């Protein structure tokens, strides 16, 4: 059994090249899918693999594909979400840099499965260099006839366009991404309709995360059941964990779903720096509820984290040791959501700024007794009332930080004293 799929050749610049990838058996899965399988058979393998969306929401990939209406006269689109802006997440960047052909091959297979002949890869503007690496890989693959007209003589056509965003976290939210791709500001859309029914230019559209699609070739190559067997039940396969913060070896680690958080931090990422003690961990990108040090035996999969009130999200693990001031940490996150709220709906537009200002005031030593209750109340008023999930994402850290580390917050508010050990 293979231990790694996408990260096998991380940090090997040769692996970016088509020849290297082909030597490794690359594009065989795509060729097989197109020449030997029906789109439905492809989708069935993906369903069997239990592959869940790795962009954050964890929606089963195969199921999502099945929502494309069978009878729509409009063209269908495949859109790759490579906006990767969730703080603490940098796995998609690694895919672009070290194994772009995995993504491209996954795109061919997914496009074939859903019947799309145009794909857009939406990459955050800051990733210009990485987008260029991907473009170079795409050019090579086009030359080899893997993209364009009549691929492998099957009559299947596919064009891919790499599209650069321009600096907006919200454009990672799929409906905002579509707006952005249409040349508008990134204001999320009301749903329904969902993109599978009416997405880009009003046409049926499937949006998948970069990593999600990059696992598809292996699933087709070795079978859906094989992939499913790599993880825990209902949480198939491997995934890329981004680990950052106070660990000795920050980086991307490819491990089965369900790997205990403790193992990721201590075994793979080398443990905490300078022999310090762990204080808190954000398990799945900044929007996911924080965990205390005593909660890290949790298995890193969608269901186990949900069971303890957190989320796997984008699997961006941010590790904070005892020197961390959690009021400060939360203020940093609040500033982020305030900066990134698109401003369309009232609770998020007004609430994110409000929370950020309260937290800053507390940090400035101007906290008042009611502030914590007020923060929780404002977060509560944002939660579940907004157009998109950014509102919830902004509220969740506030709840989890304040409830789990109440003493630190109270000390700041009431005594103006920071409990972090420096």
């Amino acid at each position, binding site marked *: 059994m293979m231990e790694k799929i996408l990260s096998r050749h991380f940090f090997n610049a040769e692996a970016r090249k088509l020849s290297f990838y082909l030597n490794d058996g690359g594009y065989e899965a795509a060729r097989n899918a197109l020449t030997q399988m029906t789109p439905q058979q492809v989708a069935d393998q993906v369903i069997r693999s239990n592959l869940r969306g790795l962009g954050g929401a964890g929606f089963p990939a195969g199921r999502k594909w099945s929502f494309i209406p069978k009878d729509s006269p409009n063209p269908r689109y495949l859109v790759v979400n490579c906006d*990767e*802006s*969730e*703080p*603490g*997440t*940098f796995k*998609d*960047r690694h895919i672009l840099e070290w194994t772009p052909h995995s993504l491209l091959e996954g795109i061919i297979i997914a496009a074939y499965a859903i019947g799309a002949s*145009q794909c857009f890869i939406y990459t*955050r*503007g*800051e*990733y*210009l*260099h990485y987008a260029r690496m991907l473009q170079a890989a795409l050019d090579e693959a086009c030359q080899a006839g893997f993209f364009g007209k009549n691929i492998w003589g099957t009559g299947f056509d596919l064009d891919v*366009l790499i*599209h*650069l*965003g*321009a*600096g*907006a*976290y919200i454009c990672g939210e799929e409906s905002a991404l579509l707006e*952005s*791709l*249409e*040349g*508008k*500001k*990134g204001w999320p859309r009301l749903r329904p309709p969902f993109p599978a029914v009416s997405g880009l*230019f009003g046409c049926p559209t499937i949006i998948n995360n970069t990593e999600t699609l990059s696992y598809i070739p292996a699933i087709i190559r070795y079978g859906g059941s094989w992939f499913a067997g790599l993880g825990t039940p209902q949480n198939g396969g491997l995934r890329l964990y*981004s*680990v*950052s*913060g*106070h660990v000795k070896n*920050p*980086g*991307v680690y490819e491990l089965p779903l369900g790997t205990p958080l403790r193992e990721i931090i201590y075994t793979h990422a080398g443990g905490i720096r300078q022999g310090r003690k762990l204080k808190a961990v*954000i398990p799945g990108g*900044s929007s996911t509820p924080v965990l205390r040090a005593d909660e890290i035996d949790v298995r890193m999969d969608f269901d186990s984290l949900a069971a303890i009130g957190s989320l796997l999200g984008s699997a*961006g693990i*941010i590790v*904070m040791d005892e020197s*961390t001031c959690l009021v*400060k*940490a939360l203020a*940093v*996150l609040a500033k*982020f959501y305030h*900066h*990134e709220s*698109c401003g369309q709906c009232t609770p998020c537009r007004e609430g994110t700024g409000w929370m950020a200002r309260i937290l800053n005031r507390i940090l400035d030593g101007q906290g008042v007794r009611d502030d914590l209750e007020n923060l929780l109340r404002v977060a509560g008023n944002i939660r579940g009332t907004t157009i998109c999930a950014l509102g919830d994402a902004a509220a969740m850290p506030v709840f989890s930080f304040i409830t789990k580390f109440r003493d630190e917050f109270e000390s700041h508010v009431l005594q103006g004293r920071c409990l972090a050990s420096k």
Partner: protein
Amino acid sequence: MSLQSFSDRLLSEISEILARYPQPRAALLPILHACQRESGYISRDTETAVAELVGIPAIDVRETVSFYSLLLDKPAGKYHLQFCTNLSCTLLGAEESVAAACRKLGVHPGETTRDNRFTLTTVECLGACDLSPSLQVNDDYYANMSAEKVNELLDKLK
């Protein structure tokens, strides 16, 4: 000033971009990126000209330009220092790098040096927390910044 002020090179780049998209408006961000690469920022006149090219109201281009952090509506310095101050970078001391840069350049975040060489901004997570504290100068990433490394870098860029 309007379309006439666009260089031939830019105009041909724009028409190539337009050809790639199923709808002209979808080409808006790539076109704005191209304009910004050419002149460092997007002036109001450029907005009007682009609106005309794409066939949309000028206010829509204004909305778009003002929405995205990477699109600048006034010129930045030759080197645009973008310090990440999100959580992973802050945990590892991003603020010290920012402070060092501010001291050395004599500016506050958001400002440009008088000689127009440096603009200093703080930005949100750059997707490079494995390299924290991270910094982007124009399009290039720099890893593991510290006050010391900032000073060295600024010396080199001067």
